[in-house]
């Protein structure tokens, strides 16, 4: 299948998934104990307003009709108004999503660079000292709770050594500029990336080890190719798909981590917004955040699927 056809086919396949996602997000509101209208309107609502909203939402209607209404509004970009800010949710979300994506991108770069480098280093020295050290370190990294790692890094680099700023994306005075952003992003990105680096390293390493035990690798060696070439060309090329795959999955894990590192480092992204919205019991905002993340996640996975597909010669 050509790449283009694959992309189109996958697009076709994610549409039902995305619709399902909206359904889950819509239904999640049903989990809230008590009156949905009250939840949506906040605790100010008087009886009359509640009644209006109920009619407006068609809460007397069957759930499916309510969903259809909600979905139609959603398609038009209307996620409702934030309870806390009284501003359309979409308006608040857009900059937050952008900020989170910046942090994600930073973390993803770390994940890719370290995950790949470490796994190649480890697999090439399978059972050697370098391998052992990398396996040990990634075991530890995989066991660190992200919220705690964030605090530790914040304490060590921000408080003790004062090497990095510890809050926000830019300096407060004269904000802006790539330099500032890069300075600010380092620790949050490391925090977010740590466990993903571990996962990617572990998976890619074992895939690479697997590959290096494949008969064609033996055959390559038997043809007189140097170990370097065998590992870096044949080994790496054949583990790239796995790497891209697990890398794509990391987008999801990273989002899990981003929520915490944003809270800890005051990064004005969607994770922090989600946290605040939770404390504020701001249901439309929570729904908006979740929806935004899910969409980004699905699209990210789509990209990684396409890369995996492009890398897999046997499916061409």
């Amino acid at each position, binding site marked *: 299948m050509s790449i283009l056809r694959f992309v189109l086919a996958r697009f076709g396949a994610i549409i*039902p*998934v*995305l619709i*399902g*996602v909206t*359904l*889950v*997000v819509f239904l*999640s*509101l049903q*989990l*809230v*104990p008590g009156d949905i209208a009250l939840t949506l309107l906040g605790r100010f609502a008087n009886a009359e307003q509640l009644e209006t909203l109920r009619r407006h939402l068609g809460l007397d209607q069957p759930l499916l009709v309510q969903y259809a209404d909600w979905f139609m509004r959603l398609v038009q970009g209307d996620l409702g108004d934030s309870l806390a800010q009284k501003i359309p949710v979409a308006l608040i979300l857009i900059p937050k999503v952008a900020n989170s994506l910046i942090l994600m991108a930073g973390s993803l770069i770390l994940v890719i660079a370290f995950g790949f480098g470490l796994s190649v280093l480890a697999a090439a020295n399978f059972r050697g000292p370098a391998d052992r050290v990398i396996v040990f370190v990634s*075991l*530890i990294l*995989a*066991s*660190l*709770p*992200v*919220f*705690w790692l964030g*605090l*530790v890094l*914040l*304490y060590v680099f921000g*408080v003790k050594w004062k090497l990095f700023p510890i809050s926000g994306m830019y300096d407060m005075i004269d904000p802006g500029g790539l330099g500032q952003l890069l300075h600010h992003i380092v620790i949050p990105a490391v925090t977010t990336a740590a466990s993903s680096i571990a996962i990617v390293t572990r998976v890619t390493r074992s895939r690479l080890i697997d590959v290096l*035990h494949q*008969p064609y690798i*033996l055959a390559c060696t038997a043809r007189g190719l140097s170990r370097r070439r065998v590992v870096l060309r044949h080994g790496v090329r054949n583990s790239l798909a796995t790497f891209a795959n697990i890398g794509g999955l990391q*987008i*999801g*894990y*990273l*989002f*899990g*981590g981003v*929520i*915490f590192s944003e*809270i*800890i480092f005051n990064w004005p992204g969607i994770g922090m917004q*989600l*946290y605040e919205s*939770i*404390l504020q019991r701001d*249901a439309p905002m*929570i729904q908006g955040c*979740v929806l935004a*993340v*899910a969409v980004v*996640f*699905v699209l990210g996975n789509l990209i990684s699927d396409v890369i995996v597909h492009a890398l897999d010669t046997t499916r061409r």
Partner: protein
Amino acid sequence: MVDGPVTGKVASSRRRARRRTNLYFVWHGVGSDPVARGAAFLILVLLLCAILAPVIAPFDPNAAHNALRLQPPGTPGHPLGVDHQGRDILSRLLHGSGMTLLAGVLPVVLGAVISIPLGLVGAWYPRLGEIVMRLMDIVFAFPMALLAIMLAAFMGPGLLNMILALVVTLVPYNTRVVYAAATQERQLAYIEAARAAATPDLKILFVEMLPNVAAASVVYSCTIIGAVVITAAGLSFLGLGVQPPIAEWGIMTSEGRSYLVNAPHISALPGIAITVLVLAFNLVGDALRDSLDPQTRLRLVRHRPHLFG
């Protein structure tokens, strides 16, 4: 015809064998790896701590020693220091271990219990299975942590709701594992042999396939317990899980955040505790995977690595 004594002998040795089924491979994998053995021991110790906390903890976890607030580890009488509420951190850690274990392990167990039949039946009836798996795809569109956070946020904070949220989040993952294993298992000749011997479908599923497939689920569960412990602690950290004043390591880490400048130990200690517990789970999980995974198991027994084509 075989005479009586032989039959008897067979029977008795079989009884012995059945005991071995459950523990043999686990023991072989976990027990022979000193690191994993250490990790398993550690988990047992923590479990013991959790059970015995009321007895061995030096103080009531909620008793405030106000004069000693924020005292660092090494304070006389409070080896791990005192927190911002004047509570003994060691006692809180000991009491918290139970909650942390519970919040991490229970969802995994429940998830597996639900997933195994779901995945098995799905794999046996491919049409149904496809539909179930497509429904699960929707759940995979949410990052795991996010889904748990959303569900917990909407259901409201509390231990029970958190566990529920985690179960809902875990079931699809576990089901996928069971489904994949069962689909693979279904291809194997022994299933066909069972059908040839007129074994009814349900019996094939739950008598023949279950033990093989459950192993996959158990292995998967073991490898994710660590992650679930972190997620559960994370939910508590966000205020969505266990509620104060219950000692729980996630909350303890979260509470210490405000005192990072002058009393970093309040956050540091529970964080270390979580890390160690998760590390132990991960080590045991890895060893279990290596020992229960049929591939490795075959290798283990036949001493013949499958190296050359």
